[in-house]
């Protein structure tokens, strides 16, 4: 299969790559760029562990062909914050114990970020709708909901 050259921005960095036409964005992020924060849970768009932001929208990267990422801006969990400069959502998940095994956490963070970017004052219903595609088997979601609502409050005050 002939490879295609693509250019895209990942976490603020411009990247040029040759990709196979059947490679998914998830595979490129993990295998080529070694951005392993994005997780593979089902590889068919059911669980949301691979959620990243593409031009600000939350997308299952396992269903998104890498060639289609050409020219796009992508945010993964690695670009969300760093020690000492955490995103309010990251701080809130820690404060509210909104994570356990952590495998779904990157996807939850990015789906929640897409929500707050679009709707700075979400209701609990909004949070539930925005995270409906992110499965978590550990937490029962309760502390995640608390964390997202609290992060929204903090971000509005800033």
């Amino acid at each position: 299969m002939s490879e295609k050259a693509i250019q895209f921005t990942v976490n603020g960095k411009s990247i040029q790559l040759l990709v196979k036409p059947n490679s998914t964005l998830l595979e490129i992020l993990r295998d080529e760029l070694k951005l392993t924060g994005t997780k593979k849970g089902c590889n068919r768009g059911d669980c949301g562990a691979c959620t990243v932001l593409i031009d600000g929208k939350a997308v299952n990267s396992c269903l998104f062909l890498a060639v289609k990422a050409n020219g796009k801006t992508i945010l993964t969990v690695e670009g969300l914050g760093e020690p000492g400069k955490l995103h309010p959502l990251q701080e809130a998940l820690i404060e509210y114990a909104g994570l356990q095994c952590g495998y779904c956490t990157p996807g939850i963070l990015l789906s929640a970020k897409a929500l707050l970017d679009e709707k700075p004052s979400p209701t609990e219903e909004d949070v539930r709708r925005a995270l409906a595609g992110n499965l978590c088997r550990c937490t029962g979601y309760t502390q995640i909901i608390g964390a997202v609502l609290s992060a929204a409050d903090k971000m509005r005050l800033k």
Partner: protein
Amino acid sequence: MNQSIVGKYVPRVDALDKVLGRAKYADDIWFEGMLYAKVLRSKHPHARILKVDTSKAVQLEGVVAILTARDVPVNTFGIQTKDQVVLAEDRVRYMGDPVAVVAAETEEIADEATELIDVQYEILPSVFDQREALKQDAPKVHARGNLAAHRKIRKGNVEDGFAESDEIVEDTFSTQKSEHCHIEPHAGVAVVDSLGKVTVWAGSSLPNVAQAELARVLGLPMSKVRIVQPEIGGNFGGRNEISIEPYICLIAMKTKRPVKLVRTREEEFIASTIRHSYFLRYKTGVKKDGTLIAREIEIISDAGAYSSYGESSLTKSCILAAGPYRIPNVKVDGYLVFTNNPVGGAMRGFGAPQVHVAEETHMDNIASRLSIDPLELRVKNALKNGDTTVTGQVLHSVGLTETIERASEAFGWHKHLGEKAVRESKVRGKGVSCAIYPIGLTEKPNPSGAFVKCNMDGTINVIVGAVEVGQGSKTALSQIAAEEFGVELDKVNLTTGDTDVSPYDFGCVASRTTYTTGKAIQIAANSARSILFNTVAQELAVSPDALEMKNGKICVKGSPSKGVSIAEAVQLCYRRGMLVLGSGYFNPPNNLLDPETGRGSPYPSYVYATQMAEVEVDVECGLVKVLRIVAAHDTGRAINPVLVKGQIFGGAALGVGEALTESLVIEEGRTCNPNFFDYLITSIEDMPDVEAIIVEELEPTGPLGAKGFAEATNVPTAAAIINAICDATGAKIRTLPANPARVLQALKERKALHENWHSLDRV
């Protein structure tokens, strides 16, 4: 001792790496020149293997090695009975049975090569229903017959009890097969060094147990097998046995190259162990005032194709089957039966959810027969301190009644729920369920060890074999260690799950880690502390008994100024030529049950719970929505209350799933819904509001009074929901899950019964 760190919320010690995306799970580990492995599995539920021809597959470019049964040095494994094969030799017994493994330069090539392996089968008759499998003429899954185990409990005399009773109530129930669904699939990487030592990074809840099992399979001494725990993406019992480890190790040994294997989600559903499905029969004799007199129970568990944890989970079922009640006459018979279904193994609750949903819906049926409030029936019979269980064990620290009272108050059990008919087709109801759950392994020794070293700067390293699977054990165990040394949490560094360095631990199973490993840390800390105390006592010319550790210092009790810092004390020891090292272990006190009567004390202690649910049932389409749950759990001392509540929320979520949606659809041995689209776990939109209530009935044998409780959290949920459906509509659900079709069916039966009753009435 100052109790400043235990009993309050501190953030998880592993949280930062996890929110940054920096936590490394097995699939995040890469090595140069790494191969990728894929497993070929049986296409038939029961067949003889006539031939495995790998010649075509070997020729595919990029294929490096292929394993079949003859490449496995010791081709058996199993946590109790070693009746499972690493790779099938002459027979496959279910559709997930592994036949061959391919290793190739890429995952794609490995996958393609598995399809080129030609396996010739002679199809054998199969059996898929555990009751059918017990019949004389049923196909035999194993040469020894299909009855894998029969466990018995005998207390008092049920026949006398029934004769004494005013009412006899009988029920049957059946439960589904369900899957752990940890979001991280089984994955691992193996590397062999130049001396032949194998190192494996693969999530396991019990690395020490896995190390022994793996060494045996590989034909290597245990010292040549090292299992290192990467971050683990959930367990729930799904990682309680070796799975992919033998394959990647054998290929690494054969090719001298690093090997990775990651299961697909489909494989997770088809080939990992699952929760056993049960058929249950309950018969209870009761006095008019609600006093339980006698209970007879029969349990038939579907083991699937191999033993795995079948017998021990059945034993736990038998011990818990009569519920958390005082009943003088009890008879339980539990049967574990082989079929050609996927293998039943350990899953959160380990035999308790199945018996509780049957027993607690049966309790509501008894209450309804006697026209007693279901809660009152439970209060009347609830186990209390000094009562004996069905095995004759005398109980202590029983927090059941308090969980009932606290749940009832928070839920408003005695208040009206408001209008029952909310909208035309939607009706609301409430339900309650209680639960009892033990701590630690059933009947068997299951020690945990701990090493402690005190550093020159006053920081503490703690090394344990227990692992973090997401439940928060690293945080809770660090808190216990910090408490023991009277230091801040950041002074403690806890290392978990590296079999080269950590002491033995049976693992993060059976709700035992905080209780058992926590206690081991206390014992190890005590041994290190005595070195420090003896030395400081000499220095200060006081008795060691006069000293205490507080705020990072060792000082004379009551005189905080008279003392030295821990750093100074460690340095003082060093100047005298001493190192401050501690070690210790703890084994939960228990003993074997008598095989005929089931008499004995199989566990050190138990936890108790009461959950209440309010549901809304749409009687037109059969859809049930859980509106809220109140969950009161006796957890012993809550080392970290926020993480304790996290367990309760997570357990309730699993319980909601198993009550309403989750079920592996297996037809003629084939798993028909091996994905998250067709197998529905609770999503954030389905998750009800849960109020978690912690009841701290302190456990004298546990660290700082802690118990193990995490598995108890999903045990009562399904019954509370099923009872609420019945309260709302009168529909008696007796098969899990209560999906819309079953709810509609139950409503139809209820209606027919009602009409029949009315027509009889008219006669």
